[in-house]
């Protein structure tokens, strides 16, 4: 498993050494293996960021917050302005201006020696860059959804596993008390046997019509931003709003499945499998550049009989979040520390020593750093992230074709539908190819 550099092994050793010697309780996060106090510069996790937009910068700040545990040394983005803005944040934290910047991730990867990297890119870039980072044996904090197609996902999962890297998906809800509590109550049978799950994700957004072609801003490398996606002229839609366009995202459905579907799976032990039957309908914009479905209603059947419905929140009685329905009651969790149950007493239940205790983390970034040091699995590993987004991607295929999809979650293949199977992958525009392992 450990194929890391000697530096990483050194980190691991020093972590256990530190644990035995310095313990300063007030400064030690509970989850940080007893690490704390002043960390020698040589022991800091050396990190970089690929994709310094709003999400990547937010993730980066989450680690800077952990003070001396990490040091950012290199940043990469196709937008010079965003790169510059991120560098100024890092420079301030580092009290130095030596953080390096790159516009091309290939150069970034060739030149840098990192322990870990944050990758926060539009979905269509995930296949190539997650895989290449894993091949570099950098530990990755990667944004959900982890892939744009099932095939991209398969390659990424394989790369992460084969290279023995620590992977943390940015599905931070796992590190929140209410989601953990809900999932743990459900998996320990506090609502009986789960029959049905309802997952509410956001409704789509208002369109912007059909904007004309515009000049590409000077700071942006548009061709590189498009990368493996088909070449289209710049029309003023790029950062953030790429998620409403099917070339780069599947809309709110794929943007959010990595959160609430992931939690649904966590509470029912479906993290390492997928549905066997998927049927969905979508509402697509009639007009405009945004073409991702703005409403969606997908019903999945699992081999153990559980039915999971994934739909935009306005279609569901409980709206946003994950609701598990068992034969003894229901539990619903959502952001804003929300947790409710058919009977409030369920929420007071204790989980006994001999019952299932789900992985506990109270800080998503800290958990990643701890695992980079300990070489233990992080709270949001790669395969559950892949299984969560698969539900949405298979739903998308069902909506595109108008057909019910039969899925083999073991072989990860669509059964008996060669036309729908074509949608499991997407050809890459030259010169880009999905790395082979």
């Amino acid at each position, binding site marked *: 498993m450990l194929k890391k550099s000697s530096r990483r092994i050194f980190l691991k050793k020093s972590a256990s050494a530190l644990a035995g010697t310095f313990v300063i309780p007030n400064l030690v996060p509970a989850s940080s293996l007893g690490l704390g106090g002043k960390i020698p510069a040589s022991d800091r996790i050396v990190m970089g960021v690929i994709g310094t937009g709003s999400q990547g910068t937010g993730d980066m700040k989450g680690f800077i917050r952990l003070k001396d545990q990490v040091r950012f040394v290199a940043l990469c983005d196709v937008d010079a302005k965003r790169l510059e803005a991120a560098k100024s944040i890092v420079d301030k934290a580092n009290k130095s201006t030596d953080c390096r910047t790159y516009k091309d991730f290939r150069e970034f990867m060739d030149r840098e020696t990192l322990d870990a990297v944050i990758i926060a890119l539009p979905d269509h870039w995930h296949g190539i860059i997650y895989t290449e980072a894993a091949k570099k044996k950098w530990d990755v904090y990667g944004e959900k959804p982890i892939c744009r197609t099932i095939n991209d996902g398969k390659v990424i999962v394989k790369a992460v596993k084969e290279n023995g890297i620590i992977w943390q998906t940015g599905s931070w809800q796992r590190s929140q008390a209410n989601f953990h509590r809900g999932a743990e109550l459900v998996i320990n049978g506090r609502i009986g046997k789960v029959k049905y799950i309802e997952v509410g994700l956001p409704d*789509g957004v208002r369109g912007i019509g059909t904007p004309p072609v515009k000049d590409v801003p000077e700071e942006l490398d548009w061709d590189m931003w498009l990368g493996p996606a088909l070449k289209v002229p710049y029309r003023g839609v790029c950062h953030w709003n790429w998620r409403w366009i099917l070339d780069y995202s599947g809309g709110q459905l794929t943007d959010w499945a990595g959160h609430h579907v992931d939690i649904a799976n966590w509470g029912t032990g479906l993290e390492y499998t997928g549905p066997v039957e998927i049927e969905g309908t979508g509402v697509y914009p*009639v007009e405009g550049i945004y073409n991702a479905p703005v*409403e969606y209603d997908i019903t999945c059947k699992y081999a153990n009989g559980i039915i999971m419905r994934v739909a935009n929140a306005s279609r569901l009685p409980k709206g946003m979040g994950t609701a598990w329905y068992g034969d003894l009651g229901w539990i619903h969790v959502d952001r804003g520390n929300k947790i409710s149950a058919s009977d409030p007493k369920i929420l007071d239940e204790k989980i006994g020593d001999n019952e299932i205790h789900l992985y506990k983390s109270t800080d998503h970034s800290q958990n990643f750093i701890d695992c980079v040091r300990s070489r233990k699995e992080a709270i949001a590993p790669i395969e559950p992230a892949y299984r969560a987004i698969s539900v949405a991607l298979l739903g998308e295929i069902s909506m595109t074709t108008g057909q019910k999809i039969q899925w083999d979650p073991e072989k990860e293949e669509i059964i008996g539908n060669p036309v729908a199977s074509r949608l499991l992958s997407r*050809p890459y525009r030259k010169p880009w190819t999905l790395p082979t392992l």
Partner: protein
Amino acid sequence: MKRINYIFLILSVLLMIFSACNKSVQYRALIVTGQNITNWQASTPVLKKILEQTGLFRCDVAVSPEKGKDMSGFKPDFEKYNLIVLNYSGDAWSEEVKNNFSSYVSNGGGVLVYHSASQSFPEWKEYNEICGLGGWGGRSEKEGPYVYYRGNQMVFDSTEGVAGWYGLPGEFEVRIRNMEHPVTKGLPVRWMHGSDLLYARLRGPAKNMEVIATAYCDTTGGGTGRHEPVLMTVNYGKGRVFHTTLGFPADGNSPAIQCVGFITTLQRGAEWAASGKVTQPVPLDFPSISGISLRPELKALTLREDIENLAKYEIGKSTKYYTDLQNRIRKASGDKEKLLEIEKLLTRILKDKSATVESKKLVLRELGWMGSDYSVPAIKKLKGIPELEDEVNFALERLGVK
């Protein structure tokens, strides 16, 4: 003996054909109009066209005397019809006609209350009950509470005050409140409506009434900040009433009545009021939260129109023909013959020298997943055209062609 069998067979076939023809028009509707604060001369032919387009209705029109003229001779024969469409707000009907109308409804007749019709007859108790809610004409707390939605709750608000308000026309979002009602089943839960006057502060007896859709009335310009009812159903005796506040007609060509959301809910509401069920599918061009969808000619696009317009596609132009086509492909859902028919038409665009490069790019994306051996030669022929190189590679790779 054999001959008798033949005659029997021919008769049966004729009977089947006859009943099939007859089956298409199932309901007779009467549009009652002649006076209205909106332009009834413009809206009446539109309503007729919209309803008859379904193939379910044949519409007659009853035109009242002009305002202020003798109404005693105005006696529509409601009983002959499955549906009465109210496009009227004006002088009182005779007592006899009023009684005929309310007994027509209570005995099981269907009614469609259209837009400004809810302003009519404030003094007529039964009429207010049939409409559920109304406005203007001196209506106030006497007629019943204000009815609206707050969050997911319907509110009956007995505060004193006049009924009826609208601001400047504009597009607004319609929110379905009962997704299981026959009229709304299968529609997007949120959709944008073409620029219209949004009726607010309606009040009335609201007896046996269900609000099946609302729209938020913005506070800018003095609006209520409430989710106001826009589609309602009322059960009056054995009769069914569908009430839409939507569809300010202007001169008959307003975005409000060209809106596919208005057209569809009117058609479905009419069928429900006439029969208690809805057999019409949701059209492909129904709007969504993304934006409005209009039909300037009031009718849906045909496959032929989709293809003809797609072939002219340029960036920045309307994408509605392409999305209509994509919805057709979804709807064909594994129907090989239908999909082949579409594939042939798409392939024709690839071969068409006058079709734009941008249209061919879209076609190649589509054929890349739904195409068959039929389109492969035409795709291959485009190899070597630099502007199409990426899309040709994309399609061939996805189709598994070396």
